[in-house]
């Protein structure tokens, strides 16, 4: 059985570079999508921050371990999963809020379009009625 101090020392390794590389690749994919205007920078900022935090945790396990210990986690993995779940929940809620806003806006625009289209059709019909031979002097 290792002491707590020894446990945290074990996490002083070279860092999980593979995981950091995965975070970097995902961040690069995000940047590429932003450059191609498939997603907006504003909407992606939280993802980039999240990836940065995860990448930092992977590269500096010692610092991560000390933070986890200070927060009362007994294992590093628990801290990692809790952080990831909390961050994903926040990201999902943000996405849900944005999606709902866009959905409501799209309903309002659809209604507005229908009302304006009807008004236009009536105006055009009234205009063509006025131009008909019976109305010409």
């Amino acid at each position, binding site marked *: 059985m290792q002491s707590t101090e020894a446990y945290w020392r074990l996490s002083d390794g070279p860092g999980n570079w593979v995981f950091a590389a995965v975070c970097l690749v995902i961040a690069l994919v995000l940047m590429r999508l932003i450059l191609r205007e498939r997603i907006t920078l504003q909407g992606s900022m939280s993802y980039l921050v999240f990836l940065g935090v995860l990448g930092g945790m992977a590269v500096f396990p010692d610092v991560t371990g000390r933070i986890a210990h200070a927060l009362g986690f007994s294992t590093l993995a628990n801290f990692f999963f809790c952080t990831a779940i909390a961050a994903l929940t926040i990201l999902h809620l943000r996405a849900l809020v944005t999606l709902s806003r866009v959905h409501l806006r799209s309903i309002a625009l659809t209604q507005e379009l229908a009302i304006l*289209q009807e008004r236009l*059709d009536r105006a055009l019909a009234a205009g063509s009625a006025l131009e008909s031979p019976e109305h010409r002097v």
Partner: protein
Amino acid sequence: MRLLVIIPAFNEQEALGGLLDELEALPGDTGVELETVVVDDGSVDRTAEVARVHGARLLRLCRNLGIGGAMQAGLQLAHRERFDFAVQIDGDGQHPPGELHRLLAVARGSTGPDLVVGTRYRDNPGGFRSTRLRRLGSAWLCFVLRAVTRLAISDPTSGFRLYGARALRLFADTYPYDFPEPESLAMARASGLRVAEVPVTMRERQGGRSSISGYKSIYYMFKVTVAVVLAYLRTRRRGRGDKERDAVN
């Protein structure tokens, strides 16, 4: 007095023509200027064409919004064009236009309610009643509405209803999108609108299919129950916010 008949319709080519003919054949009520608008909710059949051929006004939604979104488009039109009343008649032909005078009579009465709901469950011994399961669901919603909003209404899912000016103002701004009838009653109550109901005779749908059947009815009951509570609380909160803003100004 100007009255707009709003007919939300989604793939209702079979029933719509007959319904519009019935509206056309209504006896002229002195002092009532009646207009009809069909809200085509993204239909893929000839609904829009049928409406045009019958000379009704037509709002064509470019995608399907559901009954709530379609109704709100009609209510916005009525509010913007300053109609005194608007009445909802479903495009499936369940609501006989001949019963419209009952709603109007109550709305023009001395108490002048803001929202009149046509009920099929009161004083209606010979008329069409829905299935037992639906009546059970309706009874549950009555209970929820009474418990949450203290509104006693016997047919909360009825879409045959008449909106006065205050109701038009409220619902043109905010109207529930999915299964809107019970939720809109909670909103009306929370906004201090006067709600009345009047017995009417309804009939079976003249065409098309109901959107609520099978497992969807379980989802419907759950969703509507939550929605009624939230709509009541949200509308009350908004009303308090508006009052505070008015006091500051």
